[in-house]
């Protein structure tokens, strides 16, 4: 069936079997391999993307179910060479080690700050609880999201 999804502002259309998972559609069709395909069981969160602005595990949605909707992936965070404050925060606070969980952690964190610009550490922990980091880096991930929250408030005010 023909599935058309707007991914990071670009329209992507492809004829795929109806059972195709969104994560594979994203990785295979436009070749956006930043979205990781991890546990396959909706547990690890490496495949988290935003669908219409909401964080969703893309291994547990069919591409067909997202036909006509908007998806944002990790590649969509940076705009014109300027990193998203979440990306800056992960860099500044050393919030990644092997990097496998990072795209999902960043997309879940981005969704948190979009809804709640000044979260507590506990709220950050809850927001990223759908992701698993096996380098045991949660402490720095929380610090990174905190950093992003603190640094993007003034940026938003300037805009």
């Amino acid at each position, binding site marked *: 069936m023909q599935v058309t999804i707007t991914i990071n502002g670009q329209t992507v259309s492809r004829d795929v079997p*109806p*059972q195709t*998972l969104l994560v594979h559609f994203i990785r295979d069709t436009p070749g956006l391999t930043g979205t990781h395909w991890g546990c396959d069981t*909706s547990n690890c969160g490496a495949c988290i993307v935003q669908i219409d602005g909401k*964080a969703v595990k893309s291994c*547990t*949605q069919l591409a067909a*179910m997202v036909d006509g909707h908007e998806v944002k992936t990790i590649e969509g965070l940076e705009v014109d060479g300027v990193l998203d404050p979440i990306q800056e925060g992960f860099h500044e606070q050393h919030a990644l080690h092997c990097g496998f969980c990072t795209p999902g952690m960043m997309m879940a964190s981005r969704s948190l700050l979009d809804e709640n610009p000044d979260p507590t550490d506990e709220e950050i922990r809850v*927001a990223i609880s*759908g992701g698993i980091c096996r380098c045991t880096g949660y402490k720095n991930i929380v610090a990174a999201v905190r950093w992003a929250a603190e640094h993007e408030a003034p940026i938003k005010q300037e805009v």
Partner: protein
Amino acid sequence: MQTPAPCGYERASSVDGVIATLAERGPSTRIVAGGHSLIPMMKLRLATPEHLIDINDLHELSYIRQEGEEVRIGALARHVDLLRSELLAEHFPVFADAEEVIADPVVRNRGTIGGSLCQADPGEDLSAVCSALKASVVIRGAGGERVVPMHEFHVGPYMTAVGDAEMLTEVRIAIRPGAGSAHEKLERRAGDFAIAATSAAIWINGGTITDAGIALAAVGPFTIEATRAEELLRGKAPSDELFTQAGAICSEDSMPAADGRGPVDYKRHLVGVLTKRALRRATARALQ
């Protein structure tokens, strides 16, 4: 790599259309909403539908509202909606208790109450919540609607009263005075299914328990309605001693199996403790 087996797919544009397609295509056609139970089952070949009907466009089923003396929840209301609903927080705080510990926030963005109830996983929390609250579900078929109380909804492990060419469209919960409710769950790690969980609802009038609902998750082949413990509570004044007795009865009436989440004795013990805590919190809320 886990991927679903080949299947057909269509998007529904009306509830009547869903029922017509189900009737026409037979039981190998399944409804998909959030997909967070069905798609993992399809990956594991525990479910092998030949055709899927996607109901995510049926926005008329995405509501939580009061009608008369009932709260009505559309089948497509998502976990995140239940967690944040002020109407539910006011009347049935047990929903927010449970939703805070159902999976994780990302899964809660997609999973729906209709899907959770129809999946009827014995470890699933919302079935216990709805059972404790003595909710009813509306099931629609070609011949119209029928309203089924929760105690008739589960007909076996992963089996519900929803027939082949039928669809659960709504959950109804009566608003009665003097209500309090709470959900207590112990999980191994964030977002996991429960080791054991208890949902409790209590209705108090003039210092006496007029009615009670207790349901247990993850400690049997289906959601267990603890009717013996409910019977014990009715007509009595709430007290810690009474709740300990109710917990002991629930512990006896649970049917846990030993698995990676723990041995039978441990789970029975948990049921007693969690039931007592749930009743205590439900009562405190009823008396607020």
